[in-house]
């Protein structure tokens, strides 16, 4: 046995983590998924037509500290926090109607020719981060159902409404904040899905870099000595709230997030390339910029200020994603400081 085989065998010893899958329950899910798959195949042609209908032209990206090309999305009247701390059940009760309205917009819902997502009972919902945070009216809270309907899970953000305003519409764009809306960025980035990645209370953290595209915000937040990179996609594009954070560890090259966002299947197929993080000095010289090369695309440069950066780059009409990327670290004179290992190809 090789040393590597030995290490892998040891690492794969999962006796400390018991299985939680019930094969019979899995069978029920499999049967349900098969029915859903058949339904999707049946509406495929209709989805293609819908894609033409909802396609929208790209807007310019919005860079923190630069000219704003998009208005902030948060409804001002809804952002004023109330005084009383809300219990989990109170958060769920206030958010229920708002969440239902988002579910009705879901990708595989009525817009794609399928029946609307089922309205799950309020009793199935919870606010998973309520034990971490003291929520008040006007705060952003995550709410999810413990159940799944045939289209998948429900993990949503909610702007907690005041009493009597539970049915007021709150646009989904509220949750992709403007680059200068520090408080909203910090709130949304604090509401990542516990089952997907880490959750960190970043309220009060300083937003040190941010850029926003039509469907995505990338931001770098500083909390004490720690930095967190946060990406926030447009929720309607994913049917979910797949925003994530990553700790930006200072000893790494720290491009902690990079990725491609393609738009939902019924939307425009634009590729997004984004990252946020920190860059230490290289060979004693501070990094002033990152030059990014994407195969078959014009090269572009991202400024790095004080070692901090965040960017969102949109490559229009790229249904196959982005292939072949390389980045080079530059000093203030534009000279090469280093070429770290490349981000691997990113495909949508």
């Amino acid at each position, binding site marked *: 046995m*090789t040393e*590597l085989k030995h290490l892998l065998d040891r690492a794969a010893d999962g006796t400390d983590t018991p*299985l939680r899958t019930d*094969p019979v329950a899995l069978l029920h899910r499999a049967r349900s998924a098969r029915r859903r798959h058949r339904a999707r195949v049946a509406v495929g042609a209709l989805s293609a037509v819908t894609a033409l209908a909802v396609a929208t032209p790209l807007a310019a990206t919005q860079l923190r500290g630069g000219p704003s090309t998009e208005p902030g999305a948060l409804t001002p009247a809804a952002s004023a926090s109330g005084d009383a701390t809300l219990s989990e059940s109170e958060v769920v009760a206030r958010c229920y109607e708002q969440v239902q309205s988002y579910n009705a917009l879901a990708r595989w819902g009525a817009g794609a020719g399928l029946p609307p997502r089922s309205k799950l009972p309020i009793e199935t919902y919870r606010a998973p981060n309520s034990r971490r945070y003291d929520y008040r009216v006007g705060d952003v809270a995550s709410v999810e159902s413990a159940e799944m309907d045939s289209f998948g899970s429900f993990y949503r953000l909610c702007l907690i409404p005041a009493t009597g305003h539970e049915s007021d519409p709150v646009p989904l764009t509220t949750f992709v904040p403007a680059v200068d809306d520090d408080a909203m960025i910090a709130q949304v980035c604090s509401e990542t899905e516990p089952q997907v990645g880490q959750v960190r209370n970043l309220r009060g953290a300083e937003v040190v870099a941010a850029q926003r595209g039509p469907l995505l915000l990338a931001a770098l937040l500083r909390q004490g000595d720690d930095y967190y990179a946060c990406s926030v996609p447009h929720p309607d594009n994913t049917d979910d709230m797949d925003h994530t954070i990553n700790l930006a560890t200072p000893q*790494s*090259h720290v491009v*902690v997030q*990079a*990725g491609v966002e393609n738009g939902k299947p019924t939307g425009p197929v634009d590729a997004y390339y984004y990252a946020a993080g920190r860059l230490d000095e290289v060979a004693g010289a501070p990094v002033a910029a990152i030059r990014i090369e994407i195969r078959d695309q014009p090269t572009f440069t991202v400024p790095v200020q004080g070692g901090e950066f965040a960017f969102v780059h949109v490559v229009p009409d790229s249904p196959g994603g982005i292939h072949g990327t390389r980045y080079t670290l530059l000093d203030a004179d534009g000279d090469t400081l280093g070429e770290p290992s490349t981000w691997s190809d990113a495909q949508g």
Partner: protein
Amino acid sequence: MATSHDEEFTAFAAASLPQLRRTAYLVCGDWHRAEDVVQDALIRLYRVWRRVERQEALLAYARRTTIRLLVDESRRPWRRERPTAGHGADSWVSASSAGAVDERDVIVRALSTLPPRRRACVVLRYYHDLSVRETADVLGCSEGTVKSQTAHALATLRAVLGDLDLVKGTSS
């Protein structure tokens, strides 16, 4: 699918889950995510059960689907996030690493420094002892890609793990 097939599926799921989850864990570094992905793979297997049953081993299909889901998930819109260089893998390694780092953590942390496809190459070649050709079949790529990805992966692992003689006695 007839009831008998349902019974076969549940029996197969119960028997294969532990092994598939171990494979998935080595690729993703998170036991819960590994189990979720295996569930998804088995659900997909159910959809094509009869065809797969006729054409190839069910376990091989389930393993291939599990690996591809993990590799593809890393490229999935809205999900893609990775530390990319240096030692920035802390956020990727599961929360269990908060305690004492034991031998198991060492290789998982080392794997976390690799891109997903290279991780999969290492797991398939050196955990499952698949040949280059079999690994290429699983990943849906050329044998040359497997060789180069594996070579890069081993070089990285050697740099991270030190002077361990990782693959002594194996052939490519």
